[in-house]
């Protein structure tokens, strides 16, 4: 299948797969796997078959199985053998993958988190070294990378590679629990969307005037804080909902997080429901125009946003050690 035919197939099939966030994400997985197969076929024809075992990981919202209908690409490659031949082969393959995804409708990642970038395309051994370096470095950038990697999910290839690498993070976390505070600070900034008078703080200017930024104000507090709690408890689940479920199995979280599942499900629902009225622009998908919402929906959204703040405060207290000691 060529990229173009995958794109056509995707466009024609799309309307059958947008009933739920789960639907959307299963479909995204199918498309991305098709792109992978097409890219691998093309690359094999030119450079021969892969020289060793590997796994293709997707990160960001794709990793968490929370992609919006329109989404950019975040992915990497982990391969078995550390040698020049494999290194060259997979980096070139990574470029093909990024190209293919872009052709099919996943725009290139602004932050260059793609298999075509050697930072995200490494042998198992080099990946371990890199993760250890990121953990020790504690710079703003290395922490960003670490948090991105932590949402990695193996989409194609060896399942175990991903978990094995995450174990490095978990081991470090056990040894240096204070590291979590540093991680927390990295994602602490939230774009406020509810103001002093409990009013919505919508964009005042530009093409999104009157809208709130659902990604930054809505999703980020949930995704980031749940991720941190999952890191603290060494939970392997990747999607935000499954992470919450795992956390809820621990008695100390039951009271504080029980409401989270519903709020996050609602958030996914709103994004899906209202994207249809927008153009297929990657940027547009994150904005929710307040005037399009009914009175009850506004109330619900406000509730979700305020609870995101509450979750953030709770996570802060857990991580700074004032709770669950």
């Amino acid at each position: 299948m060529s990229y173009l035919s995958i794109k056509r197939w995707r466009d024609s099939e799309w309307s059958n797969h947008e009933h739920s966030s789960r639907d959307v994400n299963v479909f995204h997985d199918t498309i991305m796997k098709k792109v992978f197969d097409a890219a691998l076929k093309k690359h094999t024809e030119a450079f021969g078959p892969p020289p060793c075992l590997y796994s293709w990981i997707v990160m960001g919202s794709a990793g968490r199985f929370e992609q919006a209908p329109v989404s950019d690409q975040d992915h990497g490659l982990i391969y078995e053998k550390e040698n020049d031949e494999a290194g060259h082969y997979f980096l070139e393959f990574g470029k093909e993958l990024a190209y293919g995804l872009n052709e099919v409708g996943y725009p290139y990642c602004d932050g260059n988190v793609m298999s075509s970038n050697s930072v995200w395309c490494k042998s198992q051994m080099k990946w371990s070294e890199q993760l250890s370096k990121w953990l020790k470095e504690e710079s703003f950038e290395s922490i960003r990378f670490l948090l991105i990697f932590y949402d990695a999910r193996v989409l194609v290839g060896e399942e175990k590679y991903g978990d094995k690498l995450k174990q490095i993070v978990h081991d470090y976390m056990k040894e240096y629990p204070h590291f979590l505070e540093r991680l927390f600070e990295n994602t602490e900034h939230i774009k406020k969307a509810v103001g002093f008078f409990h009013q919505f703080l919508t964009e005042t200017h530009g093409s999104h005037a009157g809208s709130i930024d659902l990604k930054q104000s809505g999703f980020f507090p949930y995704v980031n804080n749940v991720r941190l709690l999952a890191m603290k408890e060494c939970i392997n689940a990747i999607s935000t909902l499954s992470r919450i479920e795992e956390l809820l199995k621990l008695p100390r979280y039951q009271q504080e997080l029980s409401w989270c599942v519903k709020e996050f499900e609602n958030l996914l629902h709103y994004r899906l429901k209202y994207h249809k009225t927008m153009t297929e622009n990657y940027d547009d998908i994150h904005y929710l125009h307040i005037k399009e919402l009914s009175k009850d929906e506004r109330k619900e959204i406000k509730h979700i946003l305020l609870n995101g703040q509450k979750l953030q405060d709770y996570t802060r207290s857990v991580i700074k050690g004032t709770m669950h000691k």
Partner: protein
Amino acid sequence: MEEIMFSLNSVWLVLGALLVILMQGGFILLEAGSTRMKNAGHIAGKTVFTFGLASIVFWAVGYGFIFGGNSNFFIGLTDFFYSGEQAEGIPYSTAAFFMFQLAFAGISLTIAFGGFAERAKLSAYLVFAILFSVLVYPVVAHWIWGGGWLAEHGKQDFAGSTVVHLTGAMAALAATVLLKPRIGKFNKNGTSNTIFGHNQVYTALGVIVLWVGWFGFNGGSTFVVDDGFFGFVVLNTNIAAGAGAVAALIISWMVLGKSDIPTILNGALAGLVAITASCAFVETWAAVLIGFVAGILVFYSVKLFDKLKVDDPIYALSVHGAAGIWGTLSTGLFATPELAAVGKPGLFYGGGFSQLGVQAMGVTVSALYAFVVSFVLLYAMKKVMKGLRVSEEEEIIGLDVSEHGNYGYPEAFVTNKEKNRLAN
């Protein structure tokens, strides 16, 4: 003793003139900082030549129109081409007084040009500088300060919330209406875009220069130093500015969720504009209140003009217009019996509604006059000069190049080809 006082008063007036003329520097920084890099040289430079033009016009006719004798309803008709002659029985140098008044006329014109920013032709500045200085400013100034009919009613406008600021802002409004918004300011769906100024530091520095200059503006308006009353005027001026800045910070924080820097800067200026009318007539607590209300008012006024799709790049309409109106009305509320040297005490000091009524009438008539006459003049200019505005292409490349063939910031714009040419 009388001679010493004459000299001291004259020094004070010249010092006032100096501070007010220095406010042109404040406006240069404020305006250039609030607009884009490609227009910086133009915005800064035009302020200098329009002040030059206004100075000559003021000397030729402006001063005579405002303060001359043989006056009709609109203007006085003596003292044209002022020779520097000393008027009899005045406790300060008339030439110093002339300079002080000239500085005010210049400020009003610069405020008016706020409405021209980033899109008007240079020739429009030139022609309107003359027309405004002959036909708009002197009439309002004569009515209120030159012994005209509003002065007879006891209209209180100590240093010119109406005369200088509102008059300028009304001309700016006429200009923005006729010029239409800058390219890219409003979207088809009715939303507006922020066109960021290129240097917030300039803008903030501009505010501080204006703030200090205002001590000359208001303090100098005592004309005499006798009882040291100017100190009280300066005190009121300062705390109103402070209250305006603080109020603007609070309101933007509460409404937008973030304290907005341009709003804070506008708040300080709005406090200054508002206290200009009332600084000599109200107690200090009232000065704080007047400034505070101005800071909140300016925030909502900016939002309102945005909603009305009036593109006001340097917020002249809100800062000088809305706050100018509020400041003028404020003396009708807060003027005290002891301080009201002109007119009557305000509503809260047992004066009833009479002074407030005078203020409201004065502000309405002055605003209407300034708007209507400016509009007619600009409309005629638009017809005769075939448009007030530069072409789309010129607007996009910027006025520095299109109007002056020069760059405010050469390093940012000179192409590689030109760099090579310069290097060889």
